[in-house]
C-alpha cells in the first residue's frame, strides 16, 4: 500500500513538473516580450518536458498494471480527454524536436508561431487532463 502510493506520487511529481514546463516554457518565451536568444534552450526544456509527460503518463498505467493487473477504467469523456492529451503530447514533442532540428533557418515570425503553438498544445493538454481526472 505504502509503496503503491509512493509509486503513484513520484509519477505524479514528474507529471506535474512536466505540465508546468510544457505550458510555462513557451509562455515565458513569448511573454512579456519575445526572447529570441533563449529559444533553443527553452525548446530543449519543452522537449524534455513533453517526453516526461509521455513517460510518466505511461508509468501511471504501468503502476496500475503492476499493482492491480489492469489499467485505469475509463469511458466516454475520459477516453476522449486521454486521446486529446496523448495527441497534444506527441504533437508538442515532435514540434519541439522539429524546431531544434530545423529552427535555426526559420524566420522570427515562424519561431514565434512555433512557441505559440507549443503554448496552445500545453494548454490543451492541461485542460484535457482536468476532464480526464474528473470524468473517470
Amino acid at each position: 500500500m505504502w509503496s503503491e502510493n509512493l509509486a503513484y506520487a513520484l509519477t505524479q511529481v514528474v507529471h506535474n513538473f512536466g505540465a508546468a514546463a510544457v505550458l510555462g516554457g513557451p509562455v515565458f518565451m513569448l511573454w512579456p516580450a519575445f526572447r529570441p536568444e533563449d529559444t533553443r534552450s527553452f525548446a530543449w526544456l519543452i522537449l524534455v518536458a513533453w517526453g516526461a509527460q509521455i513517460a510518466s503518463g505511461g508509468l501511471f498505467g504501468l503502476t496500475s498494471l503492476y499493482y492491480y493487473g489492469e489499467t485505469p477504467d475509463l469511458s466516454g469523456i475520459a477516453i476522449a480527454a486521454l486521446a486529446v492529451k496523448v495527441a497534444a503530447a506527441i504533437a508538442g514533442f515532435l514540434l519541439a524536436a522539429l524546431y531544434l532540428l530545423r529552427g535555426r533557418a526559420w524566420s522570427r515570425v515562424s519561431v514565434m508561431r512555433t512557441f505559440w503553438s507549443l503554448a496552445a498544445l500545453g494548454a490543451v493538454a492541461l485542460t484535457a487532463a482536468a476532464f480526464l481526472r474528473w470524468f473517470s
Partner: protein
Amino acid sequence: MNGKHFPAALALGLFLAIPLTALGQGKVLITSPADGATLDALDENRLVYEVDPGPRGDHVHVYVDNKEVGILRKLKGSYLLEAPSPGKHGLCVKVVNKAHVPVGIERCIQVTVK
C-alpha cells in the same frame, strides 16, 4: 513471555487480527434491485448501494453489461439506471482507487428488464 504462553498469545493475536483485517478489506452492498430481480422498463429503476472502499479504494464506478456508465463519489446512495433495454443485464459496482483502477472490491448482480 515464556515459551508456554507463546502459542496462546499467538492464537489470541490471530483471532483478534483476522476480523480487523477483514474489516479493512472493504465491501460493496447492492441493496436494490435484488440479484435476479425483474424490473419494469417503464419504472424509474435505481441501483441502491453502500460501499466501504477499504484502504485502497477511493470511489466507485457503475457498470451495466461490463460497460462503465457512472462514477459515484458518495459511498452510500443510488444511481438511476437510464432506460434499460428489455432482456437480461449485469449490473456491477466496483471500488476503484484514485487512478480509477478497480481494486478488486465489487458486487455484481443480474436483473431482467421487461
